[in-house]
């Protein structure tokens, strides 16, 4: 009686293993689901949230930011430092310093949402690596943009 049960178990077990192995073997013949980065990159969606970046004013090439500091005040991690000055003859201020402490940023996007002039956006830069954290402690977001204060 015992033996009969035992043999039944073994046969049942063998079949259940075969069912499982069939799934495993089936996978051998499918295409790999991985993408070999960095030779190929997965497509980034439009709403990808990278680190924030400053947009330039189309006409002047200066940063769009009017230094209202509402992003700095609303940032939960308090990682934005922004100051601005009025260029000569202009009505509104323009940022002369905009630093992001990326080591603290949680990529939440509140600053992008809150900005009254739409000066901030997410970058599509994700392959960021460095040997020192100082590289990210004060990222200058105005880099590469024009500035009305440069020659002064």
């Amino acid at each position: 009686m015992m033996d009969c049960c035992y043999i039944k178990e073994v046969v049942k077990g063998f079949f259940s293993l075969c069912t499982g192995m069939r799934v495993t073997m089936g996978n051998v013949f499918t295409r790999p689901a991985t993408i070999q980065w960095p030779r190929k990159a997965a497509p980034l969606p439009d709403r990808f949230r990278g680190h924030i970046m400053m947009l330039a004013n189309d006409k002047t090439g200066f940063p769009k930011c009017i230094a209202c500091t509402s992003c700095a005040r609303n940032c939960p991690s308090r990682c934005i430092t922004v100051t601005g000055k009025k260029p000569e003859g202009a009505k509104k201020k323009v940022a002369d310093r905009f630093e992001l402490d990326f080591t603290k940023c949680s990529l939440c996007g509140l600053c992008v949402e809150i900005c009254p002039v739409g000066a901030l956006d997410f970058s599509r830069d994700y392959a960021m690596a460095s040997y020192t954290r100082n590289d990210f402690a004060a990222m200058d977001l105005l880099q590469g943009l024009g500035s009305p204060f440069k020659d002064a």
Partner: protein
Amino acid sequence: MNRPIQPTYTLDKVGEENFALNLGPQHPGTHGVLRVVLHMDGEYILQADPVLGYGHRMQEKIAENMTYPQALPYVCRMDYLGALSYNLAWVLAVEKLCQFEVPERAEAIRVIATELNRISSHLLWWGAFLLDLGGFTPFLQALTDREQILDLLEEITGSRLTYCYFRFGGLPSDVDEEWLTRVLAFIKEFRDRLPRYHDLVTGNVIFHHRSKDVGVILPFDAAGYGLSGPILRGSGIEFDVRKHEPYSGYDRYDFEVPVDQNGDCLGRYNVRMAEIEQSLRIIEQAIGSIPDGPVRSKVPKLIKAPAGEVAMAVETPRGQLVIYIVSDGSKKPYRVKYRVPSFANLSIFAKMARGQLLADALAILGSLDMVIPEVDR
């Protein structure tokens, strides 16, 4: 924290040595950074002491020092696998407190996104649980499908894990028809793939031996320890916040609350697998009946909640989450309390592990589906 190193409880086993074994904080068999001090007698566990606090970030205190919108990204970082449920709970609690309206389309999209998140969480649990039991194939199998959900969610939320997509009064942005069709396509494809999961694991004899009658929780204990979610339902108690205190329009959808009477690891496994299917059903109905219209109602930019208190319960993939807010009328909450499911669910582990084999304790821990940052928060 001072904890007794000497076991306070012994099984009467003659001629064998007792010793303490540290499981974690970085043991692959524990999830996250949970540390369990196990007092062992050979292969048997005399007593298990979970040591918590490695991931403690003072989430409640942080929220009390933030304005309501600022606290939003923090809440989502408690449970990294079910972030949208947390997101939803915070948003709903504040909406309830301030009596903001939410457009119906936003509610439907919230349900779709949260249920997708629930499936992805259950899939990762499925893989990790079987990894604990020693099977590697299931893990990769689950991640392949989870990847598609992450891609779908990334497209609308912009991130892959700690989503922060819901806002007070609705959503920051609408989803397009094309995304909805792709969700439907995913559901169809995933339904085709689900039988494979059952072929691979559910019918497997080794799996049955490892999980059947292991770690039984009686309904009395389950209720007494305040367990919730699939663990409670795996012990035969039918309770689901989505059904019993519907929020976000869950009462509009037709779905079942899967229950298993056995209360063992297999029971909890069956409940979660059935839940995946129910979630698929909910998403299908939500997409089928999604109304047109705006996705965000008018809410003030500076949110000052009226003085008062509010409690909001939400069913996360792990169980019942309650967010309790006391407001004194300013723009920051006066007191915030999170009642997280994993913390209550972990509380029964010490009782269950007693007298079990070490390998079985790992199976039990896996079947509880812990997220440790949520326990510590």
